[in-house]
C-alpha cells in the first residue's frame, strides 16, 4: 500500500462524521451528517440503523472529495462508535428487524429490576465489570428478543444477527459479522478476563449464541471494504470513549482523559489487568492491539453534559446555538446561588441512581437566564469532580492534569471552571476530534502506516491549558452546595 492518509468514521450519538488524517495525525478534511433522534415514548430513544448506514455512504466519499484524494491514497479505515446502542438485523436481507435502542434509552428499567433479583446476578456483574442498569447492551438485546414478534425463534435459528453500531457498519462494509473487545466489554455478556462471550452470562440474559458477532482486537484487520471504498482495509474498531483514550495517547497505566460530548466519560488506563472499582466506576477494556495483551480502563460515565446545553437550546429555546451558552453565562459573575443537576435518565457514575431525576435548586427572583446558563456549565464541572474523586480513591493516585477533548472543549468558561473545581491544570491537545483520531491511529498502526505507539505519542501536542485560579474556600463551599443539590434528585421515581 502506498497510502498517504488514514480515515476514520465516528458514528456518534447525534451525528456521523468521516475525517481524513495525514501522517502527522492532523485533520485534512471532514464531512458530517446528523441523524434523527426518535423519542416514541418517555424514556425511549431510538435510531434508524439504515439512516445511519446511508449517512456513512454519504460522508465518506465527501470527506475524500474535500481532501482531493481517492481510495488508492487511503492506507486504512478505522471506526469509532457510540457504544451500547443495539441493532438486530436479518442475515439475508440486511434489514434491521426493529429500531436501534440507544444507550440513553431506559425502557428496560423493569426488566433490569427483575434481572437484578434473579439467581446469578452478582456473578454476571462481577464477570463483566459493569452494574446491572438500563445503560448496557445485554438488557436491550433481551428486550428486543422478548418484544419483537417471532424474533427469538429467528435468533435461535441463526436467521438474525445482533451487533452494536460498529458490528452493523463492519457487516455493511465488509460482509463480516465482527465486533471488537471494547464494544463487547459493554454488553455484560463478555468475560473481562478471557475476553470471550460467557455461556453463563448468555444464559442469564437468555441470548442465543447464534446471534453474536466474533470478538476481535480493536486494532487489527477486520476485512476489506466491498462497498463505499472497495479494496480499502478496515483495520480498527473501538467504542468512541476508548478511541478517545487511544487518540489522547494514554498508552501507559495511570494516564487518563475526559471527553466532553453529549455525555462525558473519564477513562483511566489501568494497564493489562482489570481493576475493580470500590467507588462506582466501571471496569472496561481500553483497547487491544492484535497480538498483544488487552489494556484495561476504569471509567467514570456521566450521562448528561453537552446534552444539557442542547436542552437549554432546543427544549427551552433560551439560546440558538450551543456556544452561546458561554456568551450568556458571561453576562453574570457567578451562579447567583443556583444549581442544576441534570439527572435526566437517572444519575450514572459514581451514584448509579436510576430513580433520580433532575432538579434546579436555589431559585430566587434574583436568578436570570445568565445564572441558569452558568449553572448549566457548572453542572459539567461538578459532575467531573465527582468522577475524578472516585478515580483518585480507586487508584490511590491523585490525578495531576486532566486531558480533555470533545465538542464542549471549545467552551473557555467551562474549561477554566473545570481547572478551578478540580484544582489541576486542564489540557486540550492539538486535535479536538480525538475520538476520530484514535480510530485512525488504531487503524494506521494495524497496517503499519504508523510504526509504533511511541511515534503516535510524539504527535501529541498541547494546544491550550487552563490553570486553577480560585480560593480553596470557594471551591469547598461550592462543592458542598453541589453535593446537597445532588441529594435532592434521589428517590424521585417511585418503585414499580
Amino acid at each position, binding site marked *: 500500500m502506498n497510502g498517504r492518509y488514514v480515515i476514520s468514521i465516528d458514528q456518534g450519538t447525534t451525528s456521523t462524521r468521516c475525517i481524513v488524517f495525514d501522517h*502527522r495525525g*492532523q*485533520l*485534512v478534511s*471532514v464531512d458530517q451528517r446528523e441523524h434523527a433522534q426518535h423519542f416514541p415514548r418517555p424514556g425511549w430513544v431510538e435510531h434508524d440503523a439504515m439512516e445511519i448506514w446511508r449517512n456513512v455512504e454519504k460522508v465518506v466519499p465527501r470527506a475524500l472529495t474535500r481532501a482531493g484524494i481517492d481510495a488508492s491514497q487511503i492506507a486504512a479505515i478505522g471506526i469509532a462508535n457510540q457504544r451500547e446502542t443495539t441493532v438486530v438485523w436479518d442475515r439475508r436481507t440486511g434489514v434491521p428487524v426493529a429500531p436501534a435502542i440507544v444507550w440513553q434509552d431506559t425502557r428496560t428499567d423493569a426488566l433490569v429490576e427483575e434481572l437484578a433479583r434473579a439467581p446469578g446476578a452478582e456473578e454476571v456483574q462481577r464477570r463483566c465489570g459493569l452494574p446491572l442498569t438500563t445503560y448496557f447492551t445485554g438488557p436491550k438485546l433481551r428486550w428486543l428478543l422478548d418484544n419483537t414478534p417471532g424474533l427469538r425463534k429467528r435468533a435461535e435459528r441463526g436467521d438474525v444477527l445482533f451487533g452494536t453500531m460498529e458490528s452493523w457498519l463492519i457487516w455493511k462494509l465488509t460482509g463480516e459479522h465482527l465486533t471488537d473487545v471494547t464494544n463487547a466489554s459493554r454488553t455484560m455478556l463478555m468475560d473481562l478476563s478471557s475476553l470471550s462471550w460467557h455461556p453463563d452470562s448468555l444464559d442469564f440474559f437468555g441470548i442465543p449464541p447464534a446471534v453474536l458477532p466474533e470478538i476481535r482486537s480493536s486494532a487489527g484487520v477486520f476485512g476489506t471494504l466491498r462497498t463505499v471504498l472497495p479494496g480499502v482495509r478496515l483495520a480498527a474498531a473501538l467504542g468512541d470513549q476508548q478511541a478517545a483514550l487511544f487518540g489522547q495517547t494514554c498508552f501507559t497505566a495511570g494516564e487518563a482523559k475526559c471527553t466532553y460530548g453529549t455525555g462525558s466519560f473519564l477513562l483511566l488506563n489501568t494497564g493489562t489487568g482489570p481493576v475493580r472499582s470500590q467507588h462506582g466506576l466501571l471496569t472496561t477494556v481500553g483497547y487491544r492491539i492484535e497480538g498483544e495483551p488487552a489494556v484495561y480502563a476504569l471509567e467514570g460515565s456521566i450521562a448528561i453534559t453537552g446534552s444539557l446545553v442542547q436542552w437549554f437550546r432546543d427544549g427551552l429555546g433560551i439560546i*440558538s*446555538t*450551543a*456556544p*452561546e451558552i*458561554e*456568551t450568556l453565562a458571561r453576562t453574570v459573575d457567578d451562579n447567583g446561588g443556583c444549581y442544576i443537576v441534570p439527572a435526566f435518565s437517572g444519575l450514572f457514575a459514581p451514584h448509579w441512581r436510576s430513580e433520580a431525576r433532575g432538579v434546579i435548586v436555589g431559585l430566587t427572583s434574583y436568578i436570570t437566564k445568565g445564572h441558569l446558563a452558568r449553572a448549566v456549565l457548572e453542572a459539567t464541572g461538578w459532575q467531573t469532580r465527582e468522577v475524578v474523586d472516585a478515580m483518585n480513591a480507586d487508584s490511590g493516585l491523585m490525578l495531576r492534569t486532566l486531558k480533555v477533548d470533545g*465538542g464542549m472543549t*471549545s*467552551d*473557555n468558561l467551562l474549561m477554566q471552571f473545570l481547572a478551578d473545581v478540580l484544582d489541576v491544570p486542564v489540557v486540550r491537545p*492539538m*486535535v*479536538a*476530534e480525538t475520538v476520530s483520531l484514535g480510530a485512525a491511529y488504531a487503524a494506521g498502526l494495524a497496517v503499519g502506516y504508523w510504526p509504533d505507539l511511541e511515534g503516535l505519542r510524539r504527535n501529541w*501536542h*498541547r*494546544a*491550550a*491549558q*487552563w490553570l486553577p485560579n480560585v480560593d480553596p474556600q470557594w471551591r469547598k463551599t461550592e462543592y458542598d452546595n453541589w453535593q446537597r443539590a445532588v441529594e435532592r434528585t434521589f428517590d424521585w421515581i417511585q418503585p414499580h
Partner: protein
Amino acid sequence: MPGQVQSIARAAAILRLLAGGSGRLGLLEIARALDLPKGTAHGIVRTLHDVGFVEQDKTSGKYQLGAALLHLGTSYLDVNELRSRSINWADPLAARSGEAVRIGTLLDSKVLVVHHVFRPDDTLQTLDVGALLPPHATALGKVLLAYNARGGLGDLVPYTRRTLASPRVLTRALAAIREAGWGSDIEEMTVGVAGIAAPIRGYGGLVVGAIGISGPVERVCDAHGQPRITLVTHVREAARAVSRDLGGRGQ
C-alpha cells in the same frame, strides 16, 4: 444609476410577506402571492434560509421570519460560536506552521483575541483569549481594518520603529491587503516578532474575523525579510476552510 437588482427586490417582498401576518407560509403560497414561478421563489427562499433570515418548520415545511433578522442590530456572529466553528482548522494550522495561532475580531477599535492555539512545542505558554491587541500593529488587526466598512484606524501608537503610525501609510497598507487577500506585520508591535493573517468570511463575503500565526521573525520571514510563502499558503488555506464552514466563499 445602476438598475434595480430584481432578486433583491423579490427577496425584500418575500420578507415583507412573511412579516405581514401571523403564521407560516408554504412555498406555493409565497409564489402565488408574488406571482412568481415556484422555482424562482424557491431559490430566493433557500438563500434567505441559508443566511438565517427565514426559518423552515421541520414538520410542515412552511416558512417564517428567522431569528437572525431580529438580531440584525447585534453582532452577526457570536465570538464563542466563531471559536467553536474554527477550532478544527486552527489546530492543523498550528501543527503545519509550527507557530501559535490566534483568531481575532474587532471590538471597539481593538482586536479581541477569541481563540488561541499554542505553538506546538509543548513549552510553557499562557492562553490569551480575551486579550485586546492594537489593530494597526498586528497582522490580525490590519486584516480586520482592511475590510472594516466603518473605517476608523484607531490610535496609531508607535510600538517599534516599524509600526505603521501614519494614517497615510497605514491606509496604503490596508489597500495592499485587500489586493493580496492577506496581511502581515513584521516587527511592528514587538521587535523580533512577525505575523501573517487572512480574513474569515461568512455569508455573502462579510468578514467576521481573521486568523493568523505569529512567531520569531527569522522563522516567519525568509532571507529577504518577506513572509515565507509556504506559511502564507497555510494561513490562507485555514481561513478559507473556516469560511467555507461558515457558508462564506472564502476567497
